[in-house]
Each structure stands twice: as structure tokens, then as C-alpha cells.
């Protein structure tokens, strides 16, 4: 690890910076259905992830990309089946299936038009872009690290999330193992009935493991009573939660273009104040400490600023060139690329160069054995 001492040591950025950057991009994506802008957003996210991914979550980004494609396809297919357009360039003629009265308002079948298809593609692309942005946050800073950075007052909630997050992969692993074991006893290993048959053993297995995790956490001092009184802790926790709920409502109000922003802004300020105050008030007892606390310096500010720049570019573009961010399909037009949005997206690329690379996982320094986990053994019959 001699590189640590050469020049400025590489260090992992504060996870909050990466999440702020990714969420800013996601917010920008909610502002547009312009396919060029959306594809550029996806490219920016993908490029940054390739350059600066965290060593602990190497595979998750590909998963989110695939999920995005699935969402896009589902959206288009649904539109073809249910969302017949009465007007427009007809590409394929399909008869409409009459539906009973209780399904009034739904269409089944109907002509497929270029306009309808493009609308569906644009809408699907927006959803996919949102997913990719969240996926990039996940890949750039593992959610577990973000949880570690959470204020002490929210610690219990964070732990519940940690256990829940470990439950899902365990469920998947158990399902694979039990299905394979079923085959060994000569039972069918596919089809609805087999799934019913394995549901109970799989749940039992995953639950057992989660309980084991809980026991391990308990025996390692999780949830020790500090010097703080229970009443005060409860007060702090509920204040933080109330503050965050207010912030969530405010953000929703701000993002939803149709709602009046009059309530949103004051609510945001109030919620933030309550949450921060409670955290400061509750964080004074030294009941828990942090090993290598994540620090916040200039690079973190750069990352956050570049994310905000992308969002600002999008807002400015919407103001200067109304309509450029929502490519209309009546009539069909070639989508434009407004320059403020482009400038914002270029600025969003800065973190890919400006930050130090994440510390790679040193392989094989004292471990001659093959890495076990990404390897075949767990996928097999045994564990």
C-alpha cells in the first residue's frame, strides 16, 4: 500500500456526496422526457460509475441497467396493448377488442401509431433513467456506508434497514439452494406447485439466518443502554422522524410541477431545522463512536456542486426554451438539445476526474486462496 504515501492519498468520498450527486441527476431526469437529454444523463451516470465505482458493490450497477431496459420494454408493451391512440401515423393496424362496461376507459388492441409508440418510449426512458441514477448512487457508495454515516438518533432505523437488506439476498440464495435440493429428491423443480412447496423452507431458512445475524449483533453490544434516558432518546428519534417526513412532503411538493410551491419551501426549511436540531441535540451523548468517520472536504463539495449544476442547467433550459425538454409527438419533431442542459450535464461529469479513485480491493497479498464469494461454491448445493 505504498501509494497511500505518495502525494495525496486516495480516499473514499463521503457517501452522502455521491448520493446527493446521483439524486440531483435523478431530479433532473424527472424534469424532462427529451430522449437526447435522457440518454446523455444515462451516459454521464454510467461513465462516472465506470471511473469511480466502489469496490464493495461492483455488480449492482449492471443490475439496475438491466432493470431499466425491462421497465422501458414493459412500458412500451403496455402502451401497445392498452393505450391505442385514435389519431396519428398508423404503423400497424390492429382491431380493437370490445371490453365489458366495468372496464370502461380501457382499450385493448387498436392501431399502433408512431406518435403513441414514441410517447411510450420517451416515458419509459424517463423511468429507466431514474432507475439508473439510483443505481449509480448504489454503485458509487454502498448503502451500508451511507447508513454508517447516519446520525446516532436514527441508528435503530438504520439497523433495521441493514437487517432487511441482508434478508432479501438471503432469501434469493435460499430459494436457489432449496430448489436444487428438491430436484435431488426427485420432485419437480419448476412450475407453480413447486414454488408453493419451497416457500416455507425458504422463508424458514432466510429467517433463521436473519435471527442469527440479530443474535450476533446483540452479543456484540448493539443497542446498549447509554447514559441517556429512554424518554429523551425517544423524543429525539421522533423529532428526527417528524422533521424528515416534513422534508419528504416538501420535496414532493417541489418536484410535482402542478402543485403550488407556496407550502413546499417553508415546509422544507422547517423540516430541515427540526431534523438537524434533533440530531445535534441527540448526538451529544458519546454512546456510540465511529471508526474512521467519513470526512467532508473540498472534493465532496465539488461532487455535490456538479450534481446541482446538472439540475440547474435543466431548470434554466426549461425556463429559456419552454417545450424543449418535453419533446412533443403531435406533430412528430426531431428532439432538440437545449444548450443549458448540455452545459449542466458536462459539469456533472467533473467528479469522474476530479475525485480520487476509490481504493481498489487488494487481492492476494496474504491470501493465496481464490476469492470464494463471487466464485462457484456458494451457488451450489451446499453453501
Amino acid at each position, binding site marked *: 500500500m505504498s501509494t497511500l504515501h505518495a502525494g495525496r492519498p486516495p480516499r473514499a468520498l463521503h457517501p452522502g456526496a455521491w448520493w446527493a450527486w446521483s439524486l440531483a441527476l435523478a431530479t433532473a431526469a424527472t424534469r424532462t422526457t427529451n430522449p437526447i437529454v435522457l440518454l446523455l444523463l444515462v451516459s454521464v451516470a454510467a461513465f462516472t460509475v465506470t471511473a469511480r465505482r466502489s469496490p464493495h458493490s461492483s455488480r449492482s450497477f449492471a443490475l439496475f441497467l438491466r432493470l431499466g431496459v425491462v421497465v422501458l420494454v414493459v412500458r412500451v408493451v403496455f402502451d401497445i396493448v392498452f393505450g391505442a391512440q385514435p389519431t396519428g401515423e398508423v404503423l400497424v393496424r390492429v382491431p380493437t377488442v370490445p371490453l365489458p362496461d366495468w372496464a370502461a376507459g380501457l382499450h385493448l388492441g387498436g392501431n399502433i401509431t408512431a406518435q403513441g409508440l414514441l410517447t411510450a418510449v420517451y416515458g419509459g426512458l424517463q423511468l429507466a433513467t431514474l432507475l439508473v441514477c439510483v443505481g449509480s448512487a448504489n454503485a458509487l457508495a*454502498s448503502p*451500508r*456506508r451511507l447508513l*454508517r454515516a447516519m446520525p446516532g438518533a436514527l441508528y435503530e432505523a438504520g439497523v433495521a434497514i441493514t437487517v432487511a437488506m441482508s434478508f432479501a439476498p438471503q432469501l434469493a440464495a435460499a430459494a436457489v*439452494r*432449496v430448489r*436444487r*435440493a*428438491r*430436484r*435431488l*429428491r*426427485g420432485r*419437480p423443480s419448476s412450475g407453480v406447485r413447486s414454488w408453493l*412447496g419451497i416457500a416455507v*423452507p425458504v422463508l*424458514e*431458512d432466510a429467517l433463521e*439466518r436473519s435471527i*442469527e*445475524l440479530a*443474535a*450476533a*449483533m*446483540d*452479543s*456484540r*453490544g*448493539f*443497542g*446498549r*443502554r*447509554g447514559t441517556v434516558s429512554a424518554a429523551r432518546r425517544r423524543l429525539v428519534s421522533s423529532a428526527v422522524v417528524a422533521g424528515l417526513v416534513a422534508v419528504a412532503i416538501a420535496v414532493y411538493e417541489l418536484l410535482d410541477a402542478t402543485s403550488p410551491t407556496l407550502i413546499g419551501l417553508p415546509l422544507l426549511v422547517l423540516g430541515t431545522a427540526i431534523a438537524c436540531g434533533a440530531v445535534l441535540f441527540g448526538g451529544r451523548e*458519546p*454512546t*456510540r*463512536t*465511529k*471508526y*474512521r468517520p467519513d470526512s467532508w472536504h473540498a472534493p465532496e463539495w465539488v461532487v455535490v456542486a456538479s450534481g446541482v449544476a446538472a439540475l440547474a442547467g435543466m431548470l434554466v433550459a426549461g425556463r429559456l426554451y419552454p417545450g424543449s425538454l418535453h419533446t412533443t409527438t403531435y406533430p412528430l419533431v426531431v428532439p432538440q438539445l437545449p444548450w443549458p442542459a448540455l452545459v449542466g450535464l458536462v459539469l456533472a461529469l467533473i467528479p469522474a476526474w476530479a475525485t480520487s479513485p476509490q*481504493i481498489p*480491493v*487488494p487481492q492476494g*497479498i*496474504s*491470501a493465496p*486462496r*481464490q*476469492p*470464494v*464469494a*463471487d*466464485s*462457484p*461454491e456458494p*451457488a*451450489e*448445493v*451446499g*453453501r
Partner: protein
Amino acid sequence: MIVFEAVTVTYPDAERPAIRDVELSIPEGELALVIGRTGAGKSTLLKAINGLVPHFTGGTLAGRVTVDGRDTRSYPPRELADVVGYVGQDPLAGFVTDSVEEELAYAMESLGVSPTVMRRRVEDILDSLGLTGLRHRPLRTLSSGEQQRVAIGSVLTAGARVLVLDEPTSALDPPAADDVLAALTRLVHDLGITVVAAEHRLERVIQYADRVVHVDDGGRVHDTTPTVAMENSIVAPPVVELGRLAQWAPLPLSVRDARRAADALRAQLATMPAPHERQPAVGQPVVSVRKLQANYDDLVALRGIDLLARRGEIVALMGRNGAGKSTLLAHLVGLNKPTAGQVAVAGHDPHRTSGSDLVRDVGLVPQEPADLFWADTVDDECAGAGGDARALLDRLAPGIAGHTHPRDLSEGQRLALALALVVAGKPTVLLLDEPTRGLDYPGKGRLVHVLRELAADGTAVILATHDVELAAEVSHRTVVLADGEIVADGPTREVVTASPAFAPQIAKILAPLPWLTVAQVRATLAVTP
């Protein structure tokens, strides 16, 4: 350090207490070994030390357990974390964070240790457990021996003076087990840590123990020294059995001591005819693997394996964790499709066979036997398998009540049930993946007996195992895998004596003579007085 006063633990719905009237006192700086039969109550005893029993598991605890003066009645596990560290059977299941360093720091964070002290303690533990090079590694990429050491380290950083370990070396290959045991003895000798460990693999740990706590079938506890315990115990490693046979006094517990005492025995045996090589009835080949290759993404798990097994033959498959043993077994039951090469079992391609045809051709007892269970009671499970499953179960693990839930069985009982279910299908080829994890010596003896009978009836048995004693006892042939290749394939005696890591204790004691097991020595001495 640890004091049990008239402790009785009863779980709800249990017919009898798990442990009863335990009087025990373990002073500081000792390595106490907890032994006993499968399901005797060893885990209950261990969990009572840090309060997981009864705070976490339920049940009632009568009497008093104190650790470093703290009564577990008023201190739940989390309040004892700075005194007692508990490491369960599967360390991976107990990991809370992603990487080695964070895991080592987790308990200290909960205790509110100041960051500067934390940094120093993490460095100390990384050094003393030989983990320095792994500090940034994701936990799931570690080998199982490394995971075990990280789990031990993660409770020590919190300042624990007592280390409680449930089966710390059972799942490990011999070199990894040596690493863990070396780390443990260093902790006891250099830091004065008190270690309480339950372990079935006595041949690995008995020589390091200062005290043996024997939990008998009634849940009563007998506290003795290792030598005394080994003179009377029915659970004994081969070195002790040889010592009893040769009537050595004092009874040796390590290979070193036994070898020093064995001069006369070696001289006597040298004049006698060597034991017979176990020759199986040369049946027709029923397992035929040719040029088998298996890839996972860009990782090659098996590179060109050729393997033949005949009816009536017992083949031991050895090699370190991750060498490809489980992958090979998965191919033999058709769970995986070969990347290249052919696999034929009983004349069929197992990957294309399914349902009852597959069950007749080949059966596998997986590493996690509970995967095979889906019924609510042992009786239903046996009825579902048909055949004489119940009768076989009673032979392998006597005394299991029919209405027991399969998941409430101990590890060894689960294995017995899984084996009974698989054998009930009368497969031509029987495969076992690590069958001795959590199995005591009597259980192992019964397993050996059943496997020999099956082989005599014409079943081909292939067992993947780390247990060299089992391989020496039961197998005709041993195949050693390393990094996806076969590096040795031959009669067991030749293969296991060729390398010290895989040699059984008797071979080490009597080398260069060709005896491998106590049974062989006993047979030789019996015919030629």
C-alpha cells in the same frame, strides 16, 4: 472468570432440561474444551455464558451464571459484549458490515470506544491474528479459515477477556484449521484470554486444552483434565485410542507425545505383516467423468477432470475449500451442466435425467442437509421418502422422536435424517458433501458402518470431506483436487501418507509403517500376539 452455580436450562415444550445442575468454574487464561455427543446441550452451555440463553433463545434458566462478576440474569448479551465474545458455527452469518476493518471495529463502535483507541486496537488485532493483508477485503471474498479469524478478532477488539466458540474448526480444511488453532493458542498464552470452545474434531484440539468439560446425554456436566477425560470418554480421537490400545501411561494427547511413546509398538509392528489393502469387489463402472470442464463466468472451477468409480467402491474426494469438490458433486447429480466434457452416472447423463429416475441413479446429501427437508415432522419426512428411511434413521441416530420438527434437530441428527431420506431411494451412486460436520465419534462410527454396508451391496459412494480420519477409515480410493484439477488419484493409503497435511494421526505416529487406523492396528495385534 466463568462460574456456573446449579444451572438448569429448560426450553419451552422440551421434555427434559437441555443442561441440568451444572456446577462449573473456569479460571482466567484457560482453554476449556466442551465435548459431548451430538445434541447433548453443548451449544446451550456456550450460549449461557454470554446470556444468549435465555435472553435470546427463550427458555428458563434456574441457578446463576456469572462472568467476571456479572450475573447474566441482569446483564443481557449486549451489556456483556466488553467481557464475553461469542462466535457462532457459521461466522459469515454473523457478519454485520462489508469489510474486514469495519467488522473488527463494529463492536467497539457499539461500546463507544474513542476513535484513537479503536485505531490502535484494530491494528493490534490485525497483527496478532495475521490479518494485516486482508484489512480492506470484502468479508464475503475471504476463505472460511480467514472468516473464522476475522470473527474471533471482531469480538476481541471489544476487549473481551472470554472467547466462546461453537465448532471453530469443523468446517475448515486441515491447513485453515491449523491457522485458527495457532491463533487461539497464541491468544491464550500471550494475552491470557479465556477460551471456551465446543468441538467434535478432538484430534485437532485436545492437545491444546487445559480442561475438558464433558456434557453427557442427560445434560449433566463433568469437569476434568484432558488426560482423565480421554481415559474414560467414549468420544476419543485416534491418537488416544491407540494409546489406550497400547496401554501407554500417561496417555498421549498429541502426535508428538504418541510418537515418542510408540518406539516399542513400531518395532513390534515392523515384524508383522502389513494390513490388507482394502480391495473393493471390482464391479462395473457406474460413474464415468471424461475431460469435465466447468466455468462460472470467467472463473474456471474444473479443468479437465477424468474420474471413474465402480460399484462397491468408496472414493474420498479431498482438497482445500474452493478446490472444486462441491462443483464436481453438483455435476454428478446433474445440477450443473458441464461447460465441456461428459458425465455419465449409471449409464445416464444426470443433467438430462429427473424425477424418480434421477433418484434411482444418484443421491446427494448436501453440505446443508436441511435443504432436503420440507415436511413438518420427522415421521412425515420419512413417509415421504418411502422405503426403510425410518429404520435407517434409527440406526444412524437412535432416539429421535417422530413428531420432532426437522429444523429442531441438531446438526448431526439433520445429517442422519438427510442420509436416510436419500438412501431410501436406493441410488446406484451415493454422494456426500462434508458428511462429518457436527458429527461426534460414535455418529461417525455409525456412518462408517452404514457406508460400508451400502458399498458391500454394490452402491458406489463418493464423499467430499476434510476429515482425513474418515477418509482413512472408510475409503478404498482417495482423489485430491487442487484448483480444479486432480493432483492425486490412487489407493487411500498411498495418497494420504504422501503429504503430511492429509495424513491421518495413526499414519503420522507409525510412519513409515503402512497402518492408517486404530482398527487396523488392533486387527494386526489380535491375529499375531
